[in-house]
């Protein structure tokens, strides 16, 4: 979208219309202000930008390619393209904002990075960034996710991070955020919280979005170069919404592109069985910001489920909340089973094992292709699925190789 959009949203207090802001106790207020000020001064400086660009190219391996899915398109119709964030170093888009956040932390003189992780992708990315910059790293992770995402837990430890198991509540992403905030508050001076998505109090939703914009900027140019036009449809999964904001940011202003954010429909649309925040939520405040939120009967953050650990969060980025109200993006739901089917389809038709999060986007793209055989569809393949293989095979079995 035009620069004007990015200068208008968020406003100076971090609001995207009524969403976002910084609903935080005063112990956090001064620190958030420091981070905000540093973000505006340091990360817009020429040196910071040059360093980040060099890191992206030489360390992360960017730009990641856009790839045309021959066999998938042939089978389902449409022309399906993938933005290959699975090929970004560490295997997901998360490293894009982690390198930015860690570089900023270093400029601020912080010693330690603290964060939550769901699928472990953000944790691995942050542990990687910490190793790169020589900082300490502490990752909070729900015990349920630790069991489910074992390879990523090992990766974090190999990278030198401390993994703190979280055992309260549902023992998944929301509780991991609670725990990480708590650890951060014990020492907000020498540590910094590096939140894993476009969520949390201002400035995080803005900062993470801006660091993820590289995905959209690259993809738009690459797609145009490959096809001579813009994609009809752009699809991304939405947990907190960072990979989706990354790719959407370059297409928000293009009237011929329709944008789809795909949410986890889980096992069913009953309470507690899904994490379809945008589809079934109502406004509330969680973890320091206002957004669409799934609630229990008391109005507190509700129970959620998704087959993808990185998507089961009862809140969602404030910018997505605004984009929904503005009808700039369509938010759709895909079930666990459709996700698993897409996981195997992409693996077997294209030789790409997608992360379960990303498989939600692939599943929806397949539906779109079937309904619109003439259209071009650009999917943000936010991550690779190596972390999920044991869980998928153990839980859903290994279907026969296609005859």
């Amino acid at each position, binding site marked *: 979208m035009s620069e004007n959009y990015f200068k208008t949203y968020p406003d100076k207090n971090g609001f995207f219309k009524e969403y976002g*802001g910084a*609903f935080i106790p005063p*112990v*956090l207020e001064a620190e958030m202000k420091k981070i905000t000020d540093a973000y505006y001064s340091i990360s817009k400086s020429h040196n910071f930008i040059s360093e980040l660009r060099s890191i992206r190219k030489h360390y992360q391996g960017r730009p990641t390619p856009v790839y045309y899915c021959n066999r998938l398109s042939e089978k389902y119709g449409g022309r399906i393209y993938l933005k290959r964030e699975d090929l970004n170093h560490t295997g997901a888009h998360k490293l894009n904002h982690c390198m930015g956040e860690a570089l900023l932390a270093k400029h601020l003189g912080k010693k330690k990075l603290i964060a939550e992780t769901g699928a472990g992708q953000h944790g691995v990315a942050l542990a990687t960034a910490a190793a790169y910059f020589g900082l300490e790293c502490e990752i909070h992770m729900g015990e349920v996710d630790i069991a489910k995402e074992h390879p990523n837990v090992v990766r974090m430890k190999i990278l030198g991070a401390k993994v703190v198991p979280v055992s309260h509540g549902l023992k998944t992403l929301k509780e991991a955020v609670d725990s990480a905030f708590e650890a951060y508050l014990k020492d907000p001076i020498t540590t910094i919280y590096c939140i894993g998505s476009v969520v949390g109090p201002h400035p995080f939703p803005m900062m993470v979005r801006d660091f993820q914009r590289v995905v959209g900027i690259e993809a738009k140019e690459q797609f145009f170069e490959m096809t001579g036009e813009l994609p009809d449809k752009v699809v991304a999964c939405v947990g907190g919404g960072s990979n989706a904001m990354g790719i959407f940011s370059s297409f928000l202003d293009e009237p011929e592109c329709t944008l789809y954010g795909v949410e986890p429909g889980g096992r069913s649309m009953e309470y507690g069985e899904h994490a379809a925040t945008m589809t079934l939520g109502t406004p509330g*405040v969680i973890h320091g910001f206002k957004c669409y939120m799934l609630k229990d009967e008391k109005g*507190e953050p509700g129970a959620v489920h998704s087959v993808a650990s990185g998507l089961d969060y009862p809140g969602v980025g404030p910018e997505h909340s605004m984009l929904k109200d503005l009808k700039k993006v369509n938010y759709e739901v895909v079930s666990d089973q459709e996700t698993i089917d897409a996981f195997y389809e992409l693996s077997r038709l294209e030789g790409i094992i997608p992360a379960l999060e990303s498989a939600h986007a692939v599943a929806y793209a397949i539906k779109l292709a079937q309904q619109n055989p003439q259209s071009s569809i650009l999917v943000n393949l936010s991550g690779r699925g190596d972390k999920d293989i044991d869980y998928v095979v153990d839980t859903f079995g290994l279907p026969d190789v296609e005859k």
Partner: protein
Amino acid sequence: MNRIHQKLQADNKILSIYFTAGYPSLNDTVKIIQDLEKNGVDMIEIGLPFSDPLADGPTIQASSTQALKNGMTTSLLFQQLKDIRESVSIPLILMGYFNPVLQYGVEDFCRKCQEIGIDGLILPDLPLDVYQENYEAIFNKYGLVNVFLITPQTSDDRIDQIDAASDGFIYMVSSASVTGSQDGFGNNQETYFQRIADMKLKNPQVVGFGISNSETFQQATKQAKGAIIGSAFIKFLTQNGVDKIGDFVKGIRK
């Protein structure tokens, strides 16, 4: 003028106690309030438990979790407090996170507070600007004092802004860390207390966080108008139940 103003004008060394509603048992709320007043406490903060607090120490967090398990809700708390003004006359303040208030409906919440005789609210995560833009008029309409917090990290400019926006008292958080009682105040805190005293704010200050016994209470109220005890009282309830509240208060006032 509401009860908070009267109290702060009349007395010094105000002793204020925080407890989590619904803890230790669901129906202890009224008894705790009555016993605190009977034993000479000046003001009470009633905590609304919340599932995802951003800045509570372990003691308060554990009491919140237990209170929610016991079944505490905003509506139930209002129900329990319905007749509280028949037996209690000291200032009562509700303290909690903003989300439960938003879910109840801010205006409905404020109206209910007025009906019951609640004098003020402390919502640590409600930003000053959001309050002024959207809710100040509502708070005023229902005669509620909104209390803002400052910490050692809060800049002088911000403190001046908060002082201008306040009409009651300023809640002075004693340290930059989360709640939890500590054994004593160090030099950093003394410097901070002095710095704030030197600012000559229009609103009196009440110190909270880290006050656990008569020494810390005396230290905190040397310059400030009063002090709030939270974690130490909750720990006492955990160990002694609700029948010896007088002992706790005497220990502080001795």
